[in-house]
């Protein structure tokens, strides 16, 4: 589904990512990406979704090189992104913004998304007036519209409690499994990642450190030394 090869991203003289490889299969498992602050996790998602142009390397999506393609094109091809900081339309009601996007992407099953993200009780409210946790769900819902093949989620649990984050992850895991799609989730809540993700990639200082199952990652001494510490 997604293959990133030797991806490097620089911000001026700062190297945010250095020759990172990543492969994500579309077999219905969550692929978690973890790492300390400044590891390049969000930059990786930015480069994959087209928000940031990589300095070198390629991004292949469904066997097609999309490195130079626009953000909007990628979205229309089924690559959806949610943001670390909630990005919704504050002055539109929840339903208005979901419908606007659904209409554009030709998705006539908006009710499914509303049900999955439990937004039925908020449809007539303006997004700027609902609780932050519900806004997060709207943000994720906007990414789910159009039946994407690949979900890129940047700290979907940001601002939520540990319990809410775990619940969200379980939702995502079930959704991804049911629809047999690929999902890459960047998250700081390591417990939620290990509980719900089938594969985990660890970045550190812009470099790939390890990829494996949660058990393999927990046992990897490099990961423990760089990130997990004795808590893992």
């Amino acid at each position, binding site marked *: 589904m997604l293959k990133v090869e030797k991806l490097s991203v620089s911000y001026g003289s700062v190297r945010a990512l250095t020759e990172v490889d990543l492969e994500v299969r579309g077999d219905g498992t969550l692929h978690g990406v973890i790492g300390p602050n400044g590891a390049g996790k969000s930059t990786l998602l930015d480069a994959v979704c087209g928000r940031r142009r990589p300095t070198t390397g390629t991004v292949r999506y469904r066997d097609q090189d999309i490195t130079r393609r626009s953000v*909007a094109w990628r979205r229309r091809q089924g690559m959806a992104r949610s943001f670390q900081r909630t990005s919704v339309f504050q002055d539109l009601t929840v339903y208005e913004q979901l419908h606007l996007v659904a209409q554009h992407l030709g998705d006539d099953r908006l009710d499914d998304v509303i*049900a999955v993200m439990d937004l039925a009780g908020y449809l007539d409210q303006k997004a700027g007036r609902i609780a932050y946790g519900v806004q997060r769900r709207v943000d994720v819902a906007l990414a789910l519209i159009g039946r994407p093949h690949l979900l890129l989620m940047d700290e979907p649990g940001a601002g939520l409690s540990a319990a809410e984050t775990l619940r969200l992850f379980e939702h995502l895991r079930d959704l991804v499994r049911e629809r047999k799609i690929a999902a890459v989730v960047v998250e700081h809540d390591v417990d939620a990642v290990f509980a719900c993700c089938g594969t985990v990639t660890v970045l550190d200082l812009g470099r790939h450190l390890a990829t494996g199952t949660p058990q393999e990652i927990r046992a990897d001494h490099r990961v423990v030394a760089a990130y997990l510490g004795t808590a893992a």
Partner: protein
Amino acid sequence: MNNRTTTTTAAGARPAAIGSFGGPSLRLPLTLGFVAIVFVAGAVAPSYFAGDFMLRLANEGLLLGMLALSVAFLMNQAGLVALGAASIYGGAGLLFAIAMSEWNMTPTGALCASFLIIVVYATVLGALIVRTNPLAFMMLTLAAGEMISHGVMLEGLRDYTGGADGLVVNFKGSIFGMEAADFASPARFWLVAWVGAWLAGLALWAVGRSRLGAILRAVRENEERMRFSGFDTYLPRLIAYVLVNIVAAIAGLLHVLNAGFVSPESLGLSISTNTLVAALMGGIAGSVGPIVGGLIFSFAQDEFGARGLTQLLTGIVIVVFIVVFPRGVVGGLWSAARLRARVGRRETS
């Protein structure tokens, strides 16, 4: 404030989203009736009750209102402030005058030619500048406007543009059955300007309520999210920019037909800033506000000019209006009416 039809979904009856027009409603026939009465009364009454001088002021106010409508639409829907409206307004008039005198075209031909040139110009300029952020857009429209307004004053173009003297329109023939004297008559021109303002207002109102309007407002609010939702954010803004310049061009052509003359001042920055002030005074949220703002501004300027204190009083009035009516006169009155209706509903329930 959306008129929505309902569509049934698994979640139950759900108001249709933005971009759809209202369905059958008890209020609709009443509203349409009221609008029709206002339209007819406004078209006919001023000619009976107002003298030529008042009608001339009102005509100027309507045309300024149409220009303000173009600026207001772009601000409200797309979040973009255009400071070069006068270059389109005056430029359309100048092109018409040149087409009549230099190219020896018929009035209708000159109208079409100047209109088309403006549309092409707006498309090319818009293609370059709508990509930029709102502040850069504003400065670029200002720069383009100043370029045009100073360009027409160049000595090398004087034979075409008249330079600082302006250009008299050499009108021979008729347009839609109206001759030069008809356009110059305050009473007859009032009807033309009134219909023109209504058509422009209705057209932009319809665009605002269409899917294009919904997309523009969403792009204004969160452009990045729109791109990440698969939308092209460039083309809708370009279309909006061309549409508002079409309205500005129509206002400018009506102005030159009425005045019979185009002066370099009509392309200048003061017209652009007056336009912006008129839009803010009336309110930018709909089609009525800018038109009302144009009328208020036109009459106010005349009154202040009679006292010899145009700039001072205009400045004071602008400040007062913006403090007392931050949403403009029409926006403020509308909000007050809605609040009163809400209070009334609460009291009866």
